[in-house]
C-alpha cells in the first residue's frame, strides 16, 4: 500500500464521520490558530518598533527635561523646560563626538490649505533636526539661515500632511498654508519615514516661539522642549552621553548629589530592549498556545484508540485479505496525519482571519509571515505522527484471527 492509498483510505474514513472528525481536530485548529495569531501580533509589534527605531535615526541621543525642585518641592519630569538653545550650542561646540544637534518645541494645531485642513504636530526646530535624523527631502529645501534667525514664515511638511492637504497632482512647494491664522509658505516636503513619523509640520524654532507657542507660560525665549543630538559613531555613544551629562550639570548649576534636571536617553537602545521584551512575551504566548496543540494531539490519540477498537473487525478483514502489519499502521497513521494537517490548515486560515480582525479592530499592526505558518504546520504534522503512532501501532499488532472473531 502506498502513502497515497493510505491518505485516500483515511479521507474516506474521516468523511463518514464529519462531526467526529471535526471535533477531533478542533484542538489542533485552536492551537495552530493561536500560534499563527500570536506570531502575527508579535512580529507586527516588532515591525512597528523597528520602524520607530529606524525613524529616529542611528546613533541619536535625546535630552529631555528631568525633575526640578522649586522651593523644596519636587516636580514631575518635564514640568519645566530646563533646556535652552544655548545648551544646544554648547553641546555642538564643546563635545567633539556630536555631529549635529537641534532643539525642538512642539504642539498640535490645525493646518489649513484652501478648503482642506488637518490636525497635526507642529514642531519648531532648526535644520539640524533633519541632519540628526538623516531625514531627506522629497522636494524643496530646508530652512535658510535667515529664516531660522528671523522667524521666517516657512514650513516643511511631513509626507502625511502634504498628502492630506494637497490633491495628488498639486505641487505643495511654494503654496501658502495657514497655521493658527499665520500664513506660511511650504518650502519643503520630507521623505516618508513611517506612518507615525510623517504626520508632522516643521517650522523654524524662532517662528514657533514668536508666532505660535510663545504665549505658553512655561516657554521663555531661550528654552526648548527637548534636544536631539547625533553621535558620530556607534562606539562613542556612551562617552558622548556622559560628556553631555557633565556639560549640562555644569551649565545648569546642578549641585553635586542632586538629581539632574534633564535626562539623556538613547531611544534606539531603549526600543531594542523593548523589542527583546516583546519577543520574550511572544515566545511565552507561543508556548502557551503549544499546550493546546498538545491537548489537541492527546484528543486525536484518544479518538484514534477508540477508532481502532471500533474497527477491529475491519482490521481483521484487511489482514486476511493480504494487508501487512505496516499497511494497517500506515492506514491509521495517515488518518491521524490527515486530521492534524486538515486541522492545521483550518487553524492557519483561522489564525490569519483572527489576526486580521485584531489588526482592524484594535488597530494593531500584525504581520503574517510564512515562517510562522510553516512552523505551525510542522507542529501539526509532528503532533499527528507522535500521537497517531501508538494507536496505529496497536492496530497493526492485532492478531488477524482474534480481530476477525470480534463483532
Amino acid at each position: 500500500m502506498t502513502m497515497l492509498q493510505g491518505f485516500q483510505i483515511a479521507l474516506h474514513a474521516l468523511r463518514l464521520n464529519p462531526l467526529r472528525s471535526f471535533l477531533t481536530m478542533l484542538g489542533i485548529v485552536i492551537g495552530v490558530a493561536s500560534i499563527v495569531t500570536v506570531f502575527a501580533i508579535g512580529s507586527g509589534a516588532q515591525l512597528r518598533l523597528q520602524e520607530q527605531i529606524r525613524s529616529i535615526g542611528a546613533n541619536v541621543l535625546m535630552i529631555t527635561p528631568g525633575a526640578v525642585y522649586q522651593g523644596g518641592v519636587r516636580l514631575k519630569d518635564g514640568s519645566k523646560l530646563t533646556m535652552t538653545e544655548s545648551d544646544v550650542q554648547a553641546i555642538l561646540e564643546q563635545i567633539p563626538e556630536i555631529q549635529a544637534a537641534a532643539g525642538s518645541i512642539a504642539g498640535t494645531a490645525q493646518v489649513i490649505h484652501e478648503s482642506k485642513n488637518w490636525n497635526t504636530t507642529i514642531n519648531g526646530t532648526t535644520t539640524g533636526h533633519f541632519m540628526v535624523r538623516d531625514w531627506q527631502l522629497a522636494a524643496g529645501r530646508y530652512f535658510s539661515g535667515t529664516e531660522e534667525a528671523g522667524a521666517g514664515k516657512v514650513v516643511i511638511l511631513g509626507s502625511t500632511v502634504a498628502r492630506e492637504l494637497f490633491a495628488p497632482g498639486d505641487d505643495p512647494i511654494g503654496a501658502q498654508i495657514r497655521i493658527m491664522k499665520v500664513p506660511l509658505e511650504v518650502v519643503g516636503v520630507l521623505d516618508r519615514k513611517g506612518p507615525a513619523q510623517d504626520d508632522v509640520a516643521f517650522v523654524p524654532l524662532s517662528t514657533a516661539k514668536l508666532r505660535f507657542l510663545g504665549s505658553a507660560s512655561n516657554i521663555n525665549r531661550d528654552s526648548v522642549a527637548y534636544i536631539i543630538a547625533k553621535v558620530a559613531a556607534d562606539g562613542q555613544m556612551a562617552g558622548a552621553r556622559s560628556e553631555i551629562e557633565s556639560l549640562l550639570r555644569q551649565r545648569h548649576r546642578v549641585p553635586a548629589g542632586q538629581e539632574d534636571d534633564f535626562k539623556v536617553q538613547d531611544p534606539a537602545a531603549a526600543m531594542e530592549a523593548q523589542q527583546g521584551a516583546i519577543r520574550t512575551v511572544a515566545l511565552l504566548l507561543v508556548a502557551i498556545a503549544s499546550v493546546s496543540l498538545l491537548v489537541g494531539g492527546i484528543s486525536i490519540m484518544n479518538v484514534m484508540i477508540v477508532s481502532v477498537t471500533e474497527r477491529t473487525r475491519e482490521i481483521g478483514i484487511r489482514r486476511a485479505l493480504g494487508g501487512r502489519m505496516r499497511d494497517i499502521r500506515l492506514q491509521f497513521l495517515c488518518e491521524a496525519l490527515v486530521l492534524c494537517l486538515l486541522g492545521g490548515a483550518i487553524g492557519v486560515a483561522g489564525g490569519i482571519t483572527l489576526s486580521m480582525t485584531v489588526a482592524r479592530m484594535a488597530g494593531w499592526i500584525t504581520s503574517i509571515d510564512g515562517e510562522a505558518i510553516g512552523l505551525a504546520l510542522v507542529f501539526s504534522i509532528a503532533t499527528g505522527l507522535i500521537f497517531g503512532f501508538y494507536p496505529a501501532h496497536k492496530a497493526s499488532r492485532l492478531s488477524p484471527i482474534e480481530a476477525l472473531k470480534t463483532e
Partner: protein
Amino acid sequence: MTAPLPLISLRSVSRTYRTDGVAVAAVRNVSFDIAQGEIVAVMGPSGSGKSTLMNMIGLLDLPSEGEVHLEGANVAELSEDRRSSLRARSIGFVFQSYNLLARHNAIENVALPLVYGGISRKARLARAEQSLQAVGMLHRAHHFPRQLSGGEQQRVAIARALIASPLIVLADEPTGALDSRTGAEILALFAALNRTGQTIVMITHDPGIATQCRRTIRLHDGELVSDETLVPLLPKRSAVS
C-alpha cells in the same frame, strides 16, 4: 514420474493454544494434501478444529508442530510480511458472515485485496467489475453491503475472494448464515467455479454440503478421522450447474 506437487500439504500438523496456563490442542497430528483443482469439504462438529485448520491453510496462523507447505514452500519460514503478501495473491477467503466493509460499496470491497497488491485504482476497478460479473453481481456494483441481501453479500464476498486469481479459495461455513435456497445457489456457484479449475476448500458442519464435494475430510477433537473421495453424484452436479 513423480506426482505433481500438491498445492497445499499438511505434514503432522498440530496447533496448541495456551489459555490461562492450560494447553488446549485444537488440531492434532493432521496430515493431508490438496491438489490443484480439487474441491474439498472439511467437516466436523464445532470445536473439532476446523477453523484452526483453515487459519493455518490461509496463512493466518502457524502450526505449533509439523509443517504447512504452500506450493512446496514451508510457510513458517516466510516472514509475516511475506505471508501477508502471499495471502493477498494466493488465498481467497469467504466467511460465514461475509465480512464486507460496511462503509465501502460492493465494487470497492471486491477491489480491496488488490490495494495490497500495489495495483492502480483503475486496474483494480476493472478487475473488480470482471469479478462481480463472474458471480452475477455487476448490477449491484455500487450498492453498499446493507443494501444487499445475505446471498448477494456472499456473492460479493466470493467475487472479492476471486479477484486476485488465488491458488485456493477458503470458505468458512459460506452458507451458514443463508436460507437453504440461497445456500444452494451459493454452493452451485462454488461448484461452477470448481469446474473452471478453481481449487476450493470449504469448511462446514452440514453433511448436505459435504456430499456435494468430491472429497470430504472429517475432523473430530482436532484429529483427522476420515479422508474420503466420493464418486461424484452426476445427477446432482448437473442439477446445480
